[in-house]
Structures are given as C-alpha cells and as structure tokens.
C-alpha cells in the first residue's frame, strides 16, 4: 500500500506520515501541492491519496477533480485533510467524489477511523 501525502506545510506532511506509519502504512510519498502531486499519481503505483485543500499552485479540490477525470485514477480513494470547514465547501468536496473529509486540527484516532472506514467500504 503506497500513500501519497499532499500538503503545502512540511510539518503537516511529517505529522500525517508519522501517523500513517503508526497505523502500519510505512510506504508514503509526499508532494507540496496539486501540481507536483498529479504527475506522481499519473506515474502510477499510488494506492491512496491524502490531500490538503488550500495549497498554492493547484488546490486539493482541483487535484481531486483531476483524479476523478482521469480514467486510470478515477477509482483512487481520496481522503481530504483540511482546515476548510465551510458547509458549502464540504458539500463541494463530496460532490467532487471525495472518500473522506477530516478538518484540522484533527486527532490520530480520527485519521485511523476515517481510513478504516474508507477501506471497509472499498473491500466490502
């Protein structure tokens, strides 16, 4: 299981990576916005995408839309971890096909729960 973690703040990427390792996901790669993430996704081999929303260059929502529009990536599970808490925005993300939505600041337990839920649904 290879996971791509996308966030413009390196501290946040480190935190997410560490939490994922704690949950048993040791194979992670990083990108600092949608523009750098997309080529990594298109190169293949990524099984799960964890992305922030508000990033320079290309936002997480645009990245999500690009993923869903690409036939090769369309089924990639995407978890959004973001400070954006406006109801309209959460609905936008849901409509764009996000698999999970976590608002910052979050806890390790929340991340675990959302990831488990996403895989439960995929496996089930």
């Amino acid at each position: 299981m290879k996971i791509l973690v996308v966030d413009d703040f390196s501290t946040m990427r480190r935190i997410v990576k560490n939490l994922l390792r704690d949950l048993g996901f040791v194979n992670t790669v990083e990108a600092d916005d949608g523009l750098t993430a997309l080529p990594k996704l298109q190169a293949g081999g990524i099984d799960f995408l964890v992305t922030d929303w508000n990033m320079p260059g290309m936002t997480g929502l645009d990245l999500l839309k690009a993923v869903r529009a690409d036939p090769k990536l369309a089924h990639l599970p995407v978890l959004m971890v973001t400070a954006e808490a406006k109801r309209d925005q959460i609905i936008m993300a849901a409509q764009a096909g996000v698999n999970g939505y976590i608002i910052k600041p979050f806890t390790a337990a929340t991340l675990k729960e959302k990831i488990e839920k996403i895989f439960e649904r995929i496996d089930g």
Partner: protein
Amino acid sequence: MSDDTRLGLAKQLVIALEQGDDASTDQLLDDIAGVRETQLFREVGKLTRQLHDALGSFAFDAKIASITENDIPDAKERLNYVISMTEQAANQTLTAVENLLTVSQQLDSEACILSGKWERFRAREMPYEEFKEMSQEITQHFKQADERLLEIQSGLNDILMAQSFQDITGQIIRKVIDLVKNLEDNMVGIIRVSSAKKVPNKDELLGPVVPGIDDKQNDVASDQVDVDDLLSSLGF
C-alpha cells in the same frame, strides 16, 4: 490678465468709442469678455478635478473605514487565536516531555540497580536467596519496561500531534499579512489619490476557522462530528 493689460484695453475701448470706430469697439469688447470666459472655464476645470479627486479619495476612505472597523479587530482576534494555539501546543509538548523524563529516569535507575546486581551474580558473589530475589526483580522490570515503553510511545505521539499548530497558525498569520498588505496598498492609494479599484475574490478559501470570527454566520462545521453529520446527511 494683469490690471495693466485691462487698463490698456479699456483705454483703447474709450478711444474707439470716442472715434466712433464700431469695428474696433466690438473687437475690444469681445477680447475683454473672452479673457473672462477663459478664466471661468479654467476655474470650472479646476473645481471638476478637485471634485473627482475628492470622490476618488472618498472611495478609499470607505475601504479604510471597513478595514479599521472589521478587519483589524478580526486580525487581532486571529492573532490572539495564534497565541492560544501555540501556547496549547507548547504546554502539550512540555507536559509530554516532563512525563517522559520521569518515565525514562525510572527505567534508568531500575536498570542501574539490576545491572549492578547482575555483575555481582556473574562474579559469583551472589548468595542463592538473593539470586531468587533478583530473578523476581528482573521479571518485574521487564513487565514494567513494557508498560513504560508504551507510555513513551504515546507521549511521543502527543508531541508529534502538538506540532500540527504550525500549519494552522501559519495559515492564519498569512491571512493577517494579506490584511496588512491590503491596508498598505490602500494607504499608498490615498496618497496617490488614484481611482484604481480592487475587486474582492468570491472563491477565496476561508482557511482555519477562528472561533468567534469565522463561525458567526453559522455556515461552518465546528468540529469533526459536524463534518461527519453533514456527510452522512449527503449519503456518505
């Protein structure tokens, strides 16, 4: 037009009238009136420009007023939130470190005592009764070490999570920097008294919700439970 010129024109006019020179009289009257009109137009032009400039600076004043009334108090609240978040993170980290130091000191002192006893045992200086005691102590130590290492791991995780403030406060401070820049632009604008207009961006992302500021309209999710409820209402 100077007084001398006017006097000169008036004298010429009197001469022309005395001589009954109608053509010259008309020409001189036109000249005098023309000078008047030119001056009037110039004055009106000046007034128009002043009015335009005043209206321009008024538009800036309104923006500055909105910044002072809303944005600056907002920014103060945001910065206060940054202080409280960083303080919270620092406290969380310090608490974890203090606990971890105690745990590691306990482990260290136990290991020291046991290692001293172990050396005596290896040097065959330990009576059987004491060996039995030490064996129990070692068992006990392994059990406790296990628990304490778990404690250390959980403390380290707390420290890790505490660092997440940097992302949130970074975003908030960026917003305040934007505000300061905006204010600066406006001040420069007032000095220049230009009529350039800045159109607000409606698609702007809100960023981290600062309690008491961004949740006033009740259109934001206040926590993860709120998000989960909203998503489940959408069939998630």
